[in-house]
Structure formats: C-alpha cells, structure tokens
C-alpha cells in the first residue's frame, strides 16, 4: 500500500508539470500583462503610468522565466500570493471561505449520493414496470433543466413563498446551519436526475449477475438482496463518482454559493471573475487540480478498502 502511494505521488509530478505548462500558456502567453492591467484597473482610461505601477506592484513586469518560477511555485507549493485587485493574501481568504464551502459542499455530496442511491435501488427494484419507465423519463427531464432554474425556483418557492428558510445569507456557528439547508436541498435536487439514472444502470448491471440468483435461490429476501448484496458490489462505481466530486466540496459550488450569498470559496471565485482578478482565478484552478489528483489517489485506496479483490501493487 505504502509503495503504491509513493508511486502514485511520484506519477503526479509529470502531470502537475503539464498542468503548470498549460496554465502558464493560458494565463501568461495568451493575454499580455498590459491587457490584464487594463481589465483589472477600474478607471476607464488608465494612463501608461497607472498601468506600469499596477504591473510593478504585482510583479507582472518581471521577465517571463521569473514569472514562470512564481507560477510553478504557486502550483506545486500552493503558495498563492496576493489578490490582483485587493492585494490581500489569497490563502487567507481561502481559509475563511473553507468552512462555509465545506458545510454546503459536504451536505450536497452526502445528500445527493445518499438520496440517489436509495432512489436508484427503489427504481431498480421495479425494473421493467411503469414505475421504472416513468422514473427514467423523470430523470431525463431533471437532467434537462439547468441548475440555475433549480436554484431560482427553489429560492423563490421555499425562501419567498413558503418562507421555510432564509432567502440568502450566512452566519457562522450552529445558527448558520439553517442558511445551509436550502442550498443543500437545491444542490441535491439538481443533481438527482443524472445520479439516479447512472446508479440505476450500475445497480441493474449487478442484478443480472449470478450471485444475485444464488442469493434469491437461498431464500434471501428481496430488500436484503438489494441493500446488502447488490449495494456492496455496486460500491466501486459509486465510490468513484463520490471521490471525483470531492474537489467541489472544497472549491464549493460557484452557483449555489453566489445565489445564496454564502461567503465560501465558490463565491470568492465568482467575485474574482467579476473583478477581473487573474491571480485569484489562477489560484482556484491550481487548488482544484491538486485536490482532484489527491481525490484520484484516494479513489484507488478506497477501492482496496471496499473490495477485497482489489490489491494495490
């Protein structure tokens, strides 16, 4: 296991290097520093001196090699530096935003995996009947509505008409949880269609296998077959999709957070896009990438933990 981990981390090196080169080309070569300055400075017609000052203050006037070193540092060591527009350290804002993002993100993740696996098992139990057919149609319909509409409609219905939850906002501590409920519900609902459909096929795949017939022949009850035998064997694809969405627990859902006014990492990025803040957008891409790579290793490790047939060597 340890040897495997070391090897995987060793493999991540070249990939990070590739990401480093690709993002450098994107952020430094496809846009000139002067353009960056012009977009970030709020004055309508910045003078040459203003632009020069802006570039010098943020280190964009240095030669490309030096810029690349800084770029690589911020990716490999997650040393993000300062925001282009406000000048405050990005890491500090990320730390502040991590807790709200974590609350909403983990809520959405656990909620949606839980709800969709249970629903998928239910639908799979009724395979081939009208329940199954209409559930599939409903799933496709759910997939065809944009997340934005789920958010706007949810906010309107539960926040304004029924007044069950606050419309938007956030508060730290236990009292803040009631602000998190609606975003979590909306997040779960918007992902339900695609998830149930995916898990249903996974579960149906398992249900055609021999061990299910054996279990039934032994007289195991149908719920027990579904929830114990099938669920255990369907764990690998479920885990994969679970772990691969882990980065978003931390980076937060951009849309949910900005709509519900949650001061997490996601809304930090939305603000950065509005403010034309290149440093913050770069930092978010790096953070997301590193988390994704960590998530990929965790997926493999969790396979070995869940499925005794998988050996990591």
């Amino acid at each position, binding site marked *: 296991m340890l040897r495997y981990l070391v090897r995987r981390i060793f493999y991540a090196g*070249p*990939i*990070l290097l*590739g*990401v480093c080169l*690709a*993002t450098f080309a*994107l*952020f430094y070569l*496809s*846009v000139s520093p002067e353009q960056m300055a012009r977009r970030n400075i709020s004055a309508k017609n910045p003078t040459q001196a203003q632009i020069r000052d802006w570039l010098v203050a943020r280190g964009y006037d240095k030669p490309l090699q030096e810029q690349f070193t800084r770029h690589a540092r911020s990716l490999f060591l997650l040393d993000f530096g300062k925001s282009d527009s406000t000048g405050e350290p990005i890491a500090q804002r990320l730390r502040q935003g991590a807790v709200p993002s974590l609350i909403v993100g983990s809520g959405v993740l656990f909620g949606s995996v839980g709800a969709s696996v249970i629903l998928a098992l239910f639908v799979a139990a009724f395979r081939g009947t009208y329940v199954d057919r209409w559930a599939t*149609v409903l799933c*496709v*319909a759910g*997939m*065809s*509505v*944009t*997340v*934005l*509409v789920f958010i*706007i409609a949810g*906010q*309107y219905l539960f926040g*304004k008409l029924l007044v069950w939850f606050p419309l938007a906002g956030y508060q730290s501590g236990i009292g803040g949880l009631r602000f998190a409920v609606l975003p979590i519900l909306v997040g779960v609902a918007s992902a339900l269609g695609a998830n149930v*459909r*995916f898990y*249903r*096929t996974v579960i*149906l*795949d398992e249900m055609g296998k021999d061990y299910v017939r054996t279990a039934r022949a032994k007289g195991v009850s149908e719920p027990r077959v579904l929830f114990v035998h099938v669920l255990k064997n369907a764990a690998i694809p479920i885990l994969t999709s679970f772990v691969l969405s882990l*980065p*978003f627990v931390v*980076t937060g859902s*951009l*849309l949910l957070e900005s*709509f519900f006014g949650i001061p997490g990492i996601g809304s930090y*990025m*939305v603000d950065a*896009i*509005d403010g034309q803040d*290149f440093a913050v*957008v*770069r930092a*978010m*891409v790096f953070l*997301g*990438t590193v988390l*994704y*790579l960590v998530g*990929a290793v965790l997926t493999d490790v969790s396979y070995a933990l869940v499925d005794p047939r998988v050996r990591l060597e």
Partner: protein
Amino acid sequence: MILADCLAGLVVAACALALIHMLRSPLWSRAVSGFRRRPGAMFAVAVLGLYSLVAIADSFVLPARAGQPPETILDKLFARPQERTYSAPLAERTSEATPQPLLGRHILGTDGLGNDVLYRTLKGVRTAFLIGGATTLLVLPLALIFGLLAGYFGRWVDDAVQYVYTVFDSIPNILLLIAIMFVLGQGLLQMCLALGLTSWIGLCRIVRGETLKLRERGYVTSARALGYGSGRIIVRHILPNLLPILIIYATLSFSRLVLAEVILSYLQVGVPEYVGSWGNMIDAARLELTREPVIWWNLASATVAIFLLVFSLNVISDELRDGIDPSLRGA
C-alpha cells in the same frame, strides 16, 4: 458576424452529411424506423425539427431595404415593437405602477427593456445550435485523431496521448472552462474553443478504447496481412465501426453544451449581451421573481426553450443507443 455565418454553414453541412450517412446505412435506418413505434422518440424528433427550422429561419438574411439594418426571416416574422418595460403575456398594458398602453401584442410578454420575450427566446435557438454544433465540430476531429492514433499505434503514441488528456483532465472541468473564457474574453468563438478544449477528453478516451478492441478483430488482421497501409486500415476498416458511438456521443454532448452555455453566461463569461442567448435571458431574469407583481414569463420561456431542446436531444441519443448498440445501454 461573418465568422458566425461560416460556422453556421459548417454546422449545417455536417448535420446534412450525418443525416445522409444515417439514411444510407441499413443499421441506422433500422434504428430510425424503430422511432416510428415510439411516441416519445417521435415527439423528440419533431421538437428538434422545429428548432432547426427556427435556427435556419434566423440564418437567412432577407435583402435589406434602404436605410434599414439587414433582417433575417425570423426577424421579419417575429420582431415586435419595443415597449417601455415589462408587460405580462397577452397583456394590453405594461406592468408599471401606472400602466401604459402597449404598442403591439406580445404572446409571451416583454422583458425589462421592453423586448418581446417570444422573439428573444427564438433568437436564442440559433446561438444554442451554433455553440453546440461548432463545438462538436471541434471536438470530433480532435478526439478522433488522437484517439485513433493512440489506440491503433499504441506504445509511445499511446503514452503521449494519454499524458496529454490526463493533464487536461486533472483540471476540474468547470474551473478550466471558466479560466479559458475568463482569459480569452466573452464571445461566441471563444466559447466554442473553451467548450471544445474541455470536452474532447471523454470522447477521446472512448475512441481509444474502441480502437484498441477493433485493432485485434479478424478483418483488421487480414487487412494487415493483405499488406494494406495503416492509413487505409484506420480510415476504411476502423473508422466506420466508430461512427455509431460518435453520433450518439455528439447528440449527448450537444445537450450538455447547451446547458453549459447557460451557466457560463450567468457567470459573466459567456456570450456577450447583444447576442440573444438563453443564458443571458436567465441571467437577466434571476432577480425578477422578487419584484411585485412577479415577473415570471421571461424566466419561464427561456427555461421551457432549453428544456424542450435538451430533453429531446437526450431522448434521441438514448433511443439511438438502444437501437444501435444495446451493449452501450446506460453508458
């Protein structure tokens, strides 16, 4: 604008080619004739046909009269006079504190700037088709070339291609999309480029996997034994067997692209405001539900327009998949 017209031409040509191919091959015509027995599939095809008509009507420019901006057939048919501000569907007065009489009739009402909502919604069709179509045109060759090369030649070619797509794949999709749009700026072409760069990986992986399988088939081995070159084997013997997957994937990705446009436009990294798009409509409509009286028609028409298109595309790709290759069911 010229660029958008060229893209539109390319999209139409590609769709026509795909259709001709489908009608000529027995496998596809069987799948398509299966549609007739399924009301859901027929409905989806009808909706898609209607949308295509709108998109085509919006692409033909009528000869302009002197002193007037050029109009498309759609403009001619659906353009309505601009009102002062919001008005409800089929209302006769605006939704203001002191209602004013309207200049014309608006089946779906007007938005905050007084534009006819039905007209704005129909204008979004062409944008959605352009984004979906042009991006797919970018994705297909990219994924095909890399996937075929990696799968067929293996060894270092395979390693190199896998390395490239792993690198792209390690950056979370939505973050990469936003970053590219953010750096390149708003615009139709930028959007196709950004969406193309982020969505070729999935297809490339599938093409590579399929090519690996097909390479070992008997007919490929015999073609090699006959002394055919690699180019001929790839184009004549492997590519045709990939076509079903390609067309199914293209339909599916088209619907994902339409949805992605909406999200990017909301985040202010989509198409510019003067291009009529559903994302811009929803972005403008998001604060309207808090108004008194509630302005719902703007949001509702954009939502229904997106829903119908994406739903039909999803249904069609499901049906095609079931008809062509049952082994792919649920993939």
